[in-house]
């Protein structure tokens, strides 16, 4: 062992020195502000926006890279945004582990943005794309550079929302469906994470991302729940089994630069979180680690880490294996790559698991996992970009409908070939290095406790690597080699990829090869990054040895494993093509996948919301209204009663009015009688009376005349005869009085008879009139009142009291009883 490696290892174990610098904040702020700026400018000029977007990503990359010197020395950068006004003062802490992922993130983002310059020309809503791409960059870096769980959570949640817009960019139905799934799983994961953060905060009293294993010792199995919640939260973003279901849908539908970012970079935010959880929060702190696992009082703490590590290893193994099987059966290149993203995440998760399982000796697992994060970011984004370049020129994603393109797109073909070599772990390319480290880690885990299952895991590891090679080489062969199918021939001459695409792919190819040839280049930061957890000197020295002697990677054993993998891959490829195994996906029943059950669950849940729950609500509401209506129903009879009374009044009044008719007639008749009487009287007065009067008058006059004559005569007679006047008078009287009396008497008779008619005939007329009315109404002649009465008795039905009125009465009784009961209750409770 060389002195240098010893020195480096020692440096790692020593406490890292802390630098205060605002660079991390700026690295987040620049794309954040730049995003809005680009959007505003983009509304005016697309070209200016494109330039600005690329400039922002370059600047961001530069800012992240500027932290390199501190990181190389194993230091940390910390910064706290002090503000009295916010709920919480966000802190940013950058250690080499976070730095390395942030570096590759900003690097790939820069290249993807350059690539997008030409790719996005045939997409709509470009302004929106750049806005959300840059926002996602900002929050992705936020996740990586955050110094406490709270800040991390905020950025993590925002990443899900911002990247959602990238997923659904094309706005096709399948994109929308994928986006919906993505968002819901992302948010659910975020909420699980939040729940875990709350619990961590509550039980440990800190939000710092540091080893909390000892603080959590006392809470029993709850610590496993917290860990599970965190794993689900981060795993949902990382594409971990079984919360991966969104990934194969969401990654292919996004525009290619976004796919590259999603698959290459953004899922790493989840992986980063898994490492932080498994290898930092739930692993004992440095001072315990130095004592090793042998110290009894720390045994429980170690046991937790080991248990978690064991489960995580298996999650990783399952993830990598099932995904590669599905990847083998894909036709759509982008979808296949998405499955490979899941599979490769399986390797990374397994690395985290090994590191925790091996405890103090787990440096290899951690280094391998981290190294694979970097490598996967490079080759997976490169693969997506090459597939996208082909799609850009041919508009075809189905690999079986492509072929023979290497003559026209040589650069792209070369780039894809290099990336395929990278992902397959061929020596000389970057994937080989990290896969070797991971293979060492799983083998070491097997030897650690001699668990035979882990030996089986190692076999799965190798077979998976073979499958990876088989499916990727299949994609390369079908896309670029062979003969052109008809649909491609129709296009005519296929143009090579445009320059910005070539720049992006070229940079990735260069880094893949560079890392492959000089693995120690990256190891110089990977080794400090293992300071995440205080590993034993032995492990780190082992790593540092690789760093100083890169050729140690290319030992006979490493190359042997790699060639085994390739051989298995070759066999799978040949037999698969021969027997048509690559088209089995459609034969697998849908219920076999987790996705199906999620879908069922969501459907059933929505059904539950729509049907029983809402129906229930409606029922409750109805019940209220029914109660209210019941009350009204009780009130109604009383209202009805009221109405009835009212009606009775009205009826009575009408009847009364009807009655008033005859009465009026009577009145009129009486009136008429009066008038008649009066007339008769007047007539009488005018006629006989006057006559009588006249007669009397005449009589008087005559009498007077007679008297005068009588007087005259006697005077004359007296002169002649004394009694002659009397005789005259007598003769005059006897001639006139008799007719006068007759008239008088007859007049009196008339008056009396008329009065008699009034008294007797009018009641008769009245009754007659009523009968008349009744007979008119019934339409039948009614002969007598007794008949009418008989009929009335026959037709009349006595009304029973309404049911409602009985209800009303009962209600009143109930109310009285209730009041009484309340009274008694109150009396009892309040002791009146």
């Amino acid at each position, binding site marked *: 062992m060389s002195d240098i490696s010893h020195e480096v290892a020692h440096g790692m174990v020593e406490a890292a020195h802390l630098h205060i610098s605002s660079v991390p904040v700026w690295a987040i702020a620049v794309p954040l502000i730049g995003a809005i700026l680009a959007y505003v400018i983009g509304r005016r000029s697309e070209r200016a926006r494109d330039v600005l977007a690329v400039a922002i990503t370059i600047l961001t990359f530069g800012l992240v890279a500027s932290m390199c010197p501190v990181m190389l020395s194993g230091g940390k950068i910390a910064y706290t945004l002090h503000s009295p006004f916010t709920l919480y003062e966000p802190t940013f802490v950058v250690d080499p582990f976070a730095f390395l992922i942030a570096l590759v993130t900003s690097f790939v983002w820069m290249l993807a943005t350059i690539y997008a310059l030409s790719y996005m020309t045939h997409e709509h809503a470009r302004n929106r794309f750049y806005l959300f791409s840059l926002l996602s960059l900002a929050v992705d870096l936020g996740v990586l550079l955050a110094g406490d769980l709270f800040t991390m959570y905020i950025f993590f949640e925002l990443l899900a929302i911002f990247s959602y817009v990238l997923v659904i960019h094309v706005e096709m139905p399948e994109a929308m469906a994928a986006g*919906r799934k993505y968002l819901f799983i992302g948010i659910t994961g975020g909420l699980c994470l939040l729940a875990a953060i709350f619990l961590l905060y509550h039980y440990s009293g800190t939000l710092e991302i540091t080893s909390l294993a000892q603080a959590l010792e006392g809470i029993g199995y709850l610590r496993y729940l917290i860990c599970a919640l965190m794993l689900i939260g981060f795993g949902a973003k990382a594409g971990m089994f079984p919360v991966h279901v969104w990934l194969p849908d969401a990654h292919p539908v996004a525009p290619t630069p976004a796919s590259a970012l999603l698959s290459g970079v953004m899922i790493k935010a989840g992986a980063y979180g898994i490492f932080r959880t498994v290898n930092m929060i739930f692993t004992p702190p440095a001072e315990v680690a130095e004592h090793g696992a042998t110290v009894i009082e720390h045994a429980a703490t170690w046991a937790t880490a080991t248990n978690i590590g064991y489960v995580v290893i298996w999650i990783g193994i399952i993830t990598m294996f099932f995904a590669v099987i599905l990847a083998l059966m894909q036709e759509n290149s982008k979808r296949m790559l998405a499955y490979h993203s899941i599979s490769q995440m399986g390797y990374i998760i397994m690395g985290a698991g090994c590191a925790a399982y091996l405890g103090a000796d787990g440096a290899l697992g951690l280094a391998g996992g981290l190294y694979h994060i970097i490598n996967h970011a490079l080759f997976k984004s490169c693969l997506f970009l090459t597939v996208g370049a082909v799609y850009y020129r041919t508009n075809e994603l189905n690999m079986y409908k492509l072929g023979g393109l290497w003559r026209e797109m040589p650069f792209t073909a070369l780039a894809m070939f290099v990336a395929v070599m990278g992902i397959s772990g061929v020596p000389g390319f970057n994937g080989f290095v990290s896969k070797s480290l991971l293979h060492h880690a799983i083998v070491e885990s097997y030897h650690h406790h001699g668990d035979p299952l882990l030996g089986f895991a190692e076999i799965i590891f190798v077979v998976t690597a073979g499958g990876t090679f088989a499916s990727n080489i299949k994609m390369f062969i079908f896309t670029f080699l062979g003969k052109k199918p008809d649909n491609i021939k129709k296009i005519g001459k296929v143009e090579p990829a445009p320059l910005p695409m070539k720049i992006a792919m070229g940079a990735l190819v260069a880094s893949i090869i560079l890392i492959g040839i000089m693995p120690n280049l990256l190891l110089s930061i990977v080794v400090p990054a293992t300071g995440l957890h205080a590993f034993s000197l032995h492990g780190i020295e082992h790593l540092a040895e690789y760093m100083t002697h890169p050729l140690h990677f290319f030992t006979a054993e490493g190359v042997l494993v790699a060639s085994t993998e390739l051989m298995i891959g070759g066999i799978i490829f040949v037999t698969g093509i021969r027997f048509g195994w690559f088209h089995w996906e459609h034969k697998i029943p849908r219920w076999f996948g987790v996705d199906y059950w999620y879908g069922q669950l969501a459907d059933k849940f929505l059904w539950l919301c729509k049907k029983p729950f809402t129906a229930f609500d409606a029922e409750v509401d109805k019940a209220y209204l029914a109660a209210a209506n019941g009350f009204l129903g009780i009130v109604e009879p009383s209202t009805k009663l009221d109405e009835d009374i009212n009606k009775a009044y009205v009826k009575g009044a009408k009847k009364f009015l009807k009655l008033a008719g005859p009465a009026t007639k009577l009145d009129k008749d009486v009136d008429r009688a009066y008038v008649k009487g009066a007339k008769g009287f007047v007539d009488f007065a005018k006629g006989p009376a006057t006559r009588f009067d006249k007669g009397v008058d005449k009589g008087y006059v005559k009498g007077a005349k007679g008297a005068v004559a009588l007087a005259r005569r006697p005077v004359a007679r007296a002169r002649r005869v004394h009694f002659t006047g009397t005789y005259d008078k007598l003769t005059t009287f006897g001639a006139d009085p008799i007719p006068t009396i007759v008239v008088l008497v007859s007049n009196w008779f008339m008056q009396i008879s008329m009065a008699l008619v009034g008294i007797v005939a009018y009641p008769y007329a009245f009754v007659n009139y009523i009968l008349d009315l009744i007979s008119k109404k019934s339409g039948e002649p009614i002969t007598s009142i007794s008949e009418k009465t008989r009929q009335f008795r026959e037709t009349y039905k006595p009304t029973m009291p309404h049911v409602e009125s009985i209800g009303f009465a009962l209600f009143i009784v109930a109310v009285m009883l209730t009041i009484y009961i309340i009274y008694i209750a109150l009396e009892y409770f309040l002791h009146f």
Partner: protein
Amino acid sequence: MEPVYSIRPALAIAISLTCAGLIGLTGKRHRNFREFWTLSAAVSKYIIVISMFPLVYHGGEYIFSTFEIIPGVGFDLRVDAFSMFFSFLSSFLWIVTSVYSIGYMRSLHEHSQTRYYLSFAVCVASTIGIAFADNLFTLFIFYEMLTIATYPLIIHEETPEAMAAGRKYLIYLLGASLFILLGMVITYSLTGTLTFSNSGILAGHGTPETLKTLFVLFVIGFGTKAAIMPLHGWLPSAMVAPTPVSALLHAVAVVKAGVFGLIRVIYFIYGTDLMRELGLGLPLAIAASITIIVASLFALAQDNLKLRLAYSTVSQLSYIILGVALLTPSAATGGIIHIANQAFMKITLFFCAGAIFVQTGKKNISEMHGIGKTMPLTMICFAICAMGMAGVPPMAGFITKWYLCLGALEAGQPIFVAVLLTSALLNIAYFFPPIYNAFFMEPEKGAKKDNDPTWWLLLPIVLCALASIFLGLIPRAPFTPLRLASVVVEQIMGGLL
């Protein structure tokens, strides 16, 4: 700090009543003048309220006392921190809503606008009265006044549906107020006073059974307005009212009056210690949790945007009740702060729903394809506040969630964390479709471009959306609701733990 005797509390109430009179006198012949009254009263009321802010903020009180009605209970007003919290919020939002109302009512050429503005002014006066009430009796008077003054606003459309909703409203709310009355009488007979006190007045009176029964009476009474399930039925049907009414009254004033009353009862009649002693917090918290989850499920099933918002209100109101019922400082802070946070976010959402209706005549979410592209500003505000409702970090809703979850853990009830987070997920589930339809679907052919409403409508929307961002970004800035809420909590519980 010595309380200050001042006429200002009475003035704040009187000003909107006077305004109501003036509106009535002006009528529809001078509609500009009529709306001038509304706006000027709103602004002057706000100024009066804000003039009391500094003293109250530092723990002082304003008192205005009049005659005694029954021995020991007068028609008294008092402004403490909690009163200030509620009155500050509702008087500020009255200004905003007035502006919006003018735009909305004029755009739709609504009938009976005089009646509308008049009732509105009375409603706000009652709300402030509820906030300033010094005792349960005064509170009850204003509470009843609010119920009745809202009725003309609900039946504004005068359609059979509206009349039915109005009837339902009265059945629910007037029925419930009988329980308050009964509770009040029992409280008075037990203690001989109804005046609110920071430490509660019921401690040491009556048997535990009595106090528990009494509490149930109060919860039913105030809970109906606060729409605790299953007493929530009136709220969704009251959505037939014009949107500004739904916005201010059914997101802020009326429903929050119920919550306010409940909080007054819990902390100022019972007091924290007595509540803990009697163990009344947990049952109420469970009832609130059920409401939170079940109302969210109902919201998922609605297609009418306003109905969905209404069920969301039902759910969100129970956040407040849950926070208060947990009886820990953080939870209480979370609950009280949510009165303001929910108000700002929900009022924006309702405003947006109204703006969509004014501009496109659409009420159902399934019809709102691509409106985000034709009405970008409106729908961006909608999206911001909808995310805020779900508690997505930089928005105001997250502050609530944070404090409530901490409070739940403080109370040793981690199950409520699960309730809150599940609800957050459901929130996303039911707020997502309108956003999704708005931004990522193509608008119908022939839809107008740049269809954002007039600034009368847009300004309130943007203002409230900005407020809900700022309340989430810098919640601890001086004079923000969070600061005031901590003053309240300090008064009733002696500070944050």
